[in-house]
């Protein structure tokens, strides 16, 4: 491991000694840090990092350290709520709420058929919840409408892996990050989204000089500031960059011909697709100077150890899956996969979104089974003891397609679990209107913004109040023990789902209850049998073993009892037709290939190189909306702040949204730092202070998406377009068009006015008044002249979170 020492980060607030420390895992980002929860008087009073956990050796990120405040928040929901005839949410008993949900479910199924009930879950629950959702959804409700906010987060990871390697499961792991010579963080702002892993990278870099760090990002992020080479490309040009780099590497002869010949198919078609991307064309499309492209191609082409990570800058951009496939192609043509220090490490955003994909709560069938392959469905029918004909076949529907079905009146019930789509989905005006037209169940610990459309609200337990496992971004399964009981009146997601299954009377083909387990651990034992023999085989895991070893990376089997640090060490990919999780999709259109089309490819255990044709973002700046809009995360908050806004510390640091604006653009608009501006897109508008600097390039606006309260006008997703990637169906949050407008009073000068008296009257500095009006200090005041007065200004400077700088 890279860590040479441990550092136990701790945040406990109580008087006297605590009663006990309970083994757990951080429930914020996808890094998967081990931790212990402090308990006193059956209450969570703090957290500390687990010094023995190899992922973090005791370290925690700022959100991780403060996540427990939400547990004790006074506004926890403590009883179900049901919307009454006058439209008000009123308290109800669990029996009343669950009976209503069951009645509505049965009515909907009877009226609209199986594909009329949608479950939209999360990436922050437990593996056992997701497996249960998958089983209820497929074998109970028989619906295709199983999706989660993982669609916004890691869907592209899954689909790029299916395309190239035949199955989900990111090939490289953090061990490879520790051993690589070159680390390319592609659209991955690790310093803010995975602080502990970034600290791990930088600690090694300080100690050994490695890895050479390439950061690809249109913004000068805290991550980019630490890079050896920052490729600051134009928005929406990931594919032109990667196609250009691959072409340069091929032309320089830096490919592994034997590897390509023996372990891949599709090289010629892939090569033909990048042929047009000369260095000059790539430089022009991306805005990256030729010399930087050459430096990148040199580093990527020469190294014998390369890890490439991706996150939302890749996943939430136009051409998301194609860009990630491009990265897979790069590793394959250089033979840099399946060995130490090598491989793509397509990340996840949330702490357990990978688990949702793995166990079939979203997307394909459990344990990487292909929903188009009758043999896989027969296996599932046997494992679940149901008839194969009742299990739905075929590709899943992503949330954006589900919204379209809702608009067409084809969905009757939408069950929202542990996510806040009215803040997190793009074009939220459309989302709200759609969800207002169906019966909506919201299952959450708090009254989120999505409660506005809820017909029933179920109060759910938080982290620390339930037991289960999570899968992080590098296939590590981690355990979370229950530290305290949930507050009275609150139930875990798992218990709610089991209650629903009982009330729906779901049964297997022998008349026994479909859900036969009654605890998360018993559920995990069933899941293990389902996973046996599949890529994510977890048959060698027990809860106790997870605690003893501080997490294990799947597959964990008799042959690999301590897990598998990297996939494809034997260079056998999961592309045999009867093994593959997917028959793949057309890389340009996203159309699922048929079984015979796939068979004709004859991958037979070899990786697939796909052509990577560029398709630009559908919406681009215009005369009316001349700026690019991109959205993203801050280090201080998590998603829609349901948890982090309830930490006094985190909320105090970053209480409001803002818009990052390039200093040249601000100058052209004579904007003042912190001045309130209106950002509009064809879909809506927000009013936030201007954060002026060089973090964004000229022509680009960045708005954090965390702030979606109905009380203000700060929700980035009022602005975003709801287009999706053709393969992964992940929305392209990173590229919309927008405009900036100043919000100013006007003041007509009188003969008595001086600039100073005007400035004093409006309580702004004279310098700011001059700047806002492009006036010189010696400007002669003319009666009748109108001055613009900025309506307000705020301090938008956030402190940097970079603890590693103290050490390195």
């Amino acid at each position, binding site marked *: 491991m890279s860590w040479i020492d441990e550092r136990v980060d701790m945040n406990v607030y109580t008087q006297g000694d605590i009663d006990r420390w309970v083994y757990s895992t951080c429930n914020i980002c996808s890094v998967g840090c081990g931790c212990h929860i402090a308990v006193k008087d059956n209450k969570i009073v703090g957290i500390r990092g687990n010094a023995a956990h190899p992922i973090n050796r005791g370290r925690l990120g700022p959100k991780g350290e403060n996540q427990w405040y939400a547990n004790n928040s006074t506004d926890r929901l403590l009883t179900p709520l049901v919307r009454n005839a006058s439209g008000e949410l009123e308290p109800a008993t669990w029996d009343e709420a669950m009976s209503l949900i069951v009645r509505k479910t049965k009515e909907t199924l009877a009226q*609209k*058929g*199986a*594909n009329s009930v949608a479950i939209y879950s999360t990436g922050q629950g437990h593996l056992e919840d997701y497996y249960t959702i998958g089983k209820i959804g497929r074998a109970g409700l*028989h619906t*295709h409408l199983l999706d989660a906010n993982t669609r916004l987060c890691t869907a592209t990871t899954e689909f790029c892996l299916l395309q190239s390697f035949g199955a989900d499961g990111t090939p490289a792991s953090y061990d490879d990050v520790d051993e690589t010579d070159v680390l390319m963080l592609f659209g991955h702002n690790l310093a803010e989204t995975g602080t502990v892993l970034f600290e791990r990278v930088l600690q090694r870099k300080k100690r050994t000089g490695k890895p050479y760090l390439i950061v690809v990002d249109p913004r000068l992020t805290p991550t980019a500031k630490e890079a050896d080479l920052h490729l600051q490309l134009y928005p929406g040009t990931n594919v032109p960059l990667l196609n250009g780099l691959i072409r340069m590497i091929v032309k320089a002869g830096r490919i592994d011909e034997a590897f390509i010949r023996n372990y891949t198919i599709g090289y010629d078609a892939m090569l033909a697709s990048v042929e047009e991307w000369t260095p000059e064309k790539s430089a022009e499309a991306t805005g990256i100077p030729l010399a930087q492209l050459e430096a990148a191609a040199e580093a990527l082409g020469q190294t014998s150890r390369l890890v490439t990570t991706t996150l939302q800058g890749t996943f939430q951009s*136009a051409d998301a899956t194609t860009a990630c496939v491009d990265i897979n192609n790069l590793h394959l043509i250089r033979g840099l996969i399946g060995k130490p220090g090598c491989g793509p490490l397509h990340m996840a955003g949330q702490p357990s979104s990978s688990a949702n994909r793995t166990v079939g709560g979203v997307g394909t069938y459990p344990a990487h089974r292909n929903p*188009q392959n*009758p043999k896989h469905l027969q296996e599932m029918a046997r494992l679940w003891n149901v008839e194969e*004909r009742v299990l*739905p*076949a*075929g*590709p899943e*529907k992503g949330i*954006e*397609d589900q919204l*379209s*079905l809702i608009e067409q009146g*084809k969905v009757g019930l939408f069950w929202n679990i542990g996510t806040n789509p009215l803040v997190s989905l793009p074009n939220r005006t459309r989302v709200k209107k759609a969800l207002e037209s169906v019966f909506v169940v919201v299952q959450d610990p708090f009254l989120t913004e999505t409660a506005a459309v809820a017909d029933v609200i179920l109060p759910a337990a938080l982290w620390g109040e339930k037991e289960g496992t999570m899968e992080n971004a590098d296939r590590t399964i981690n355990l979370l023990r229950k530290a305290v009981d949930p507050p009275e009146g609150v139930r875990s997601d798992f218990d709610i789902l089991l209650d629903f299954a009982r009330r729906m009377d779901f049964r297997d083909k022998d008349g026994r209850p479909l859900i036969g387990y009654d605890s998360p651990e018993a559920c995990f034992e069933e899941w293990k049998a389902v996973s046996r023999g599949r890529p994510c085989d977890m048959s060698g895991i027990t809860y106790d073993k997870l605690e003893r070893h501080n997490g294990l990376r799947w597959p964990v089997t008799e042959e690999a009892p301590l897990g598998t640090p990297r996939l494809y060490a034997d260079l056998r990919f999961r592309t045999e037709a009867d093994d593959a999780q997917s028959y793949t999709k057309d890389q*340009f*259109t*996203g*159309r*699922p290939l*048929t*079984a*015979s*089309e796939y068979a004709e490819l004859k991958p037979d255990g070899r990786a697939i190189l796909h052509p990577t044709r560029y*398709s*630009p*973002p*559908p*919406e681009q700046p*215009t005369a009316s909306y001349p700026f690019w809009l991109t959205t993203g995360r801050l280090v201080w908050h998590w998603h829609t702040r349901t948890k982090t806004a309830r930490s006094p510390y985190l909320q105090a640091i970053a209480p409001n949204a803002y818009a990052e604006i390039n200093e040249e653009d601000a100058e052209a608009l004579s904007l003042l730092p912190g001045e309130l501006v209106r950002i509009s*897109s*064809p*879909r809506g508008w927000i009013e936030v202070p201007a954060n002026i600097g060089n973090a964004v390039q000229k022509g680009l606006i960045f708005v954090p998406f965390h702030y979606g309260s109905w009380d203000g006008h700060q929700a980035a997703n009022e602005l975003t*377009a*709801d*287009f*999706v990637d*053709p393969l992964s169906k992940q929305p392209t949050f990173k590229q919309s068009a927008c405009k900036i407008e100043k919000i100013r009073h006007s003041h007509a000068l009188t003969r008595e006015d001086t600039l100073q008296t005007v400035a004093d009257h409006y309580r702004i500095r004279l310098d700011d008044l001059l700047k806002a009006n492009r006036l010189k200090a010696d400007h002669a005041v003319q009666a009748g002249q109108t001055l613009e007065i900025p309506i307000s200004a705020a301090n938008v400077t956030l402190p940097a979170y970079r603890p590693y700088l103290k050490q390195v």
Partner: protein
Amino acid sequence: MAELTIIFEALWANAIKIERTIGEADNPLAKLCLTVLREQKQQLERLLPKLADEGSILTSGKQALSIVYHDDELIDSYFRSWLRHLKWSEDPFLPEAERLLTVLEETKSRLTEAASLLEDRYGYDAVKYVIPAFYMPIHH
């Protein structure tokens, strides 16, 4: 299966109509839509002669049939996205594109009708992995 022939001929005519109407559009969503539409048209051309031998349509025409259906799902999705783009960009082509939505809905309706005919004739198990679930009769 004269009924199927009539249905798929109508789909082919619809595909031609849509292709002619949006053929010049250069937005990436329109291009995606067109690429899929052209594939669908090509598959319909392969499928139509095979419909004459009604006994073997789910063997000889299985692949074409499956592609036609899956393409339709994509066309619907891309077209609706493109329509939103046209609205947001106040594109003068919008009214014409909105009229095409009726054609797309008719295509979907005919494909649903065809799915029902195929299921009636060959049984659910025979069509389960060929026709996407959203075109199957509601009892599934």
